[in-house]
């Protein structure tokens, strides 16, 4: 446990003033009106595609080192006081709702489920869970014979996990799983609905802990305390929940970063030597192309848009898409199984109060072959609002009068979900579809098919959550099988034949192009990805700043074999 974390909230992060730059009386990202504006014909030091978890952290870090940075963002520059509402259906604009094609045997629903659009990215509407990956996640192939080994290890990310946890800031109990650690803020109170789940878990000998969530619990600059209104997935109007919009972009703008919102990147431009010269983008459908020139380019569009942009960036040198000499771009994209099970009690619980993320367990995170599959899952409470609850009831086969009956019973239910680690597979991939979007650019197609290990994991975890609810005395149980999160699609690795970027997240074959988002992850564990995406961007920034990320030394590019860090349970 770090000494800093023992101080619980009284020692803030260094090198990031975002919490002080925010205005207590307004949810507006400060600095928009005085934001730096770079002439696109002038070569800046870095152009980033995407103002989400990865792109924002990278921009903030390097701007502090004096880099001139422009972020190209497809979505809007939010003004939360006016644009965000305390309402499910009214939050439609927060999601990436441009068309995408989904195929395979188990197509993954996108949009509000896992895709953001706009300044702050999908963390604007994530639930708020910020667990770390386990050390084992970085070497699943050596340990368990599945997935892949990363070219970096948990140790490489550790200082960045700690730094980002202080910046969000993360509130939670001391964490006994994976690499045991503590959090900078104390855990939030637990609602009655989560209490039901907790009692059931306790009866079954399953350890649960409060958190970890990127939600302010106490004093943190001008970020207010959470008000427990439960609308985390609709954008936090309070500024209590962490997203780059409040955690990194205020500091980035104060250090001369320009965010060019409403601009759709259409391709990366290369010069005759094969170096990226900048990013071409469109301000409006049918409008002229703009080129922002830059010494370095970082793409942070996440697991679907990053591969899409690479595949769309064809040239004589890369006829099949940028960095796609070995047909690796878009492959090994992953989602997590996210089945949710709800239980019913005689008394009212009103699960819509409090943030959906409350308590979680990683007791089942690591491989236990007696369960019949490799790797595992985590357990987390969730609490759907009425439209989400209606989809849950429908998934159990009820419509018409039966659906209305279950809906009227909403206040008596508590819900627990899982995150299954689904394995990386080459045929689960992002490609370009024949359809085009409003800019005339080919849209992405995502194919997904579960393997037997995935199916066994999902089936087993559902019996565990159902058992927890029954142990807590649930009278009735409703289950919805679903998926959440995105990761992978342009993974990091030790060789261009099996990966898209090297151990420094630099594209094989283009010396000044980096990927700075979750698409680089070769595995995903059973952890929500936001914290890891930010930590990776933080590490990348440190290495770009000192030049080590640009190393052409083959061993540096291949990374080092993972050092073994013991997991708690071993």
């Amino acid at each position, binding site marked *: 446990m770090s000494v800093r974390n023992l101080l619980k909230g009284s020692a803030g992060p260094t090198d990031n003033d975002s919490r002080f730059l925010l205005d207590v009386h307004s949810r507006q990202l400060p600095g928009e009106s005085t934001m730096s504006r770079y002439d696109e014909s002038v070569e800046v030091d870095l152009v980033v595609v995407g103002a989400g978890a990865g792109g924002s952290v990278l921009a903030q870090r390097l701007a502090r080192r004096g880099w001139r940075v422009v972020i190209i963002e497809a979505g809007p520059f939010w003004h939360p006081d006016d644009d965000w509402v*305390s309402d499910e259906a009214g939050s439609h604009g927060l999601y990436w709702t441009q068309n995408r094609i989904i195929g395979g045997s188990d197509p993954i629903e996108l949009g509000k489920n896992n895709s953001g659009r706009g300044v702050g990215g999908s963390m604007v509407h994530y639930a708020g869970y910020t667990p770390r990956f386990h050390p084992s996640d970085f070497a699943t192939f050596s340990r368990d014979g599945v997935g892949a080994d990363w070219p970096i290890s948990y140790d490489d990310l550790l200082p960045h996990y700690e730094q980002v946890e202080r910046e969000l800031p993360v509130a939670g109990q001391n964490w006994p799983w994976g690499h045991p650690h503590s959090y900078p803020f104390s855990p939030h109170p637990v609602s009655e609905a989560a209490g039901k789940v907790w009692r059931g878990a306790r009866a079954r000998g399953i350890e649960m802990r409060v958190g970890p969530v990127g939600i302010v619990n106490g004093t943190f600059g001008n970020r207010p305390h959470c008000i427990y209104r439960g609308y985390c997935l609709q954008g936090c109007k309070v500024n209590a929940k962490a997203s780059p919009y409040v955690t990194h972009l205020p500091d980035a703008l104060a250090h001369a970063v320009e965010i060019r919102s409403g601009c759709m990147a259409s391709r990366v431009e290369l010069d005759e030597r094969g170096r990226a010269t900048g990013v071409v983008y469109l301000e409006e459908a049918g409008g002229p192309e703009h080129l922002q020139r830059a010494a370095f380019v970082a793409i942070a569009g996440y697991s679907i848009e990053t591969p899409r942009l690479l595949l769309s960036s064809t040239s004589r040198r890369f006829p099949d898409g940028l960095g796609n000499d070995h047909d690796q771009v878009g492959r090994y994209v992953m989602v997590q199984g996210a089945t949710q099970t709800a239980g*019913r009690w005689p008394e009212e619980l009103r699960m819509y109060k409090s943030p959906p993320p409350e308590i979680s367990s990683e007791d089942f995170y690591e491989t236990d072959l007696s369960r019949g599959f490799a790797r595992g899952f985590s357990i987390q409470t969730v609490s759907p609002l009425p*439209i989400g609850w209606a989809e849950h009831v429908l998934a159990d086969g009820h419509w018409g009068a039966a659906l209305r009956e279950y809906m009227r019973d909403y*206040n008596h239910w508590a819900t627990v979900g899982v995150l299954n680690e689904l394995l990386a597979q080459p045929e689960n991939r992002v490609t370009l579809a024949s359809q085009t979007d409003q800019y005339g650019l080919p849209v992405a197609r995502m194919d997904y098919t579960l393997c037997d290990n995935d199916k066994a994991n999902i089936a087993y975890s559902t019996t565990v959550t159902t058992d927890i609810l029954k142990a807590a005395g649930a009278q009735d149980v409703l289950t919805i099988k679903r998926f959440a999160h995105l990761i992978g699609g342009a993974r990091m690795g030790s060789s261009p034949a099996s990966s898209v970027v090297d151990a420094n997240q630099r594209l094989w074959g283009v010396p000044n192009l980096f990927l700075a988002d979750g698409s680089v992850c070769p595995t995903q564990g059973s952890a929500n990805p936001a914290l890891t995406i930010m930590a990776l961007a933080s590490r990348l920034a440190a290495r770009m700043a000192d030049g080590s990320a640009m190393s052409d030394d083959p061993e540096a590019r291949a990374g080092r074999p993972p050092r073994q860090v013991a997991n708690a349970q071993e």
Partner: protein
Amino acid sequence: MLDRDKGEHLPNLRPDRRPPHPSWLPRQRRGTTPQMIGRYPDFDVLDAVDTWDPATKKVVLARLEPAGPLRFFGPEEEPALRALCDVTTAQDREPRVPVAELVDAKLADGELDGFQYADMPDDRDTWHLVLAGLDHSARDRYARSFARCTVEEQQDVVRDLSQGALSGGTWDSLNVRRAWSVCMRAILAGFYSHPWAWNEIGFGGPAYPRGYMRTGPTSVLEPFETPGATAEDAAQAVADNPEVFG
């Protein structure tokens, strides 16, 4: 009378997995619910409207404005659309949440969900094909349009739709089970975005900047929320407890 505490009203716990007739529910005494039934007869979420932020107030109160006219669906599609929305949400009389208009507005404004199954057309085309398919199946089985069928007949067709078990006509150009999910996504989002539906289910509604304070364990009721109705028979309670009720 059904015992709410035992969950006797829950379809999965009933012998035939069918819901009870809504006549077991109390009539709404305050505010409006769909069909004036619900479990929170004295709760009106709109009583708290002064605690909502202006942006939310604008979006939510707009749903209470007179609905329509339809912009996306043509007049020939309207009867089937209304019948489908009614039967899937069990709205058999006024007051109704205007689900058809809410779905129509979403599609007319091009508010799509951000994904399209590879074996399916655009959601907007799916809706046209489903409505045509419902009429096809109804004519095939009952020799009249879907809207002119009895509610029981409509339920039979919709049950098959929900199980992907319809074929012929426009159904053959659709993955029927996915078409069901496309339609229900929009129908449920429309119905449960409406404050009347929140009254019916006792949902506390928008909560910014007010927030919630009573999350348990001593109480889960805010000062403005009211407890749900119970199975207690008021007349019987008075008769059994003369010392309390005099």
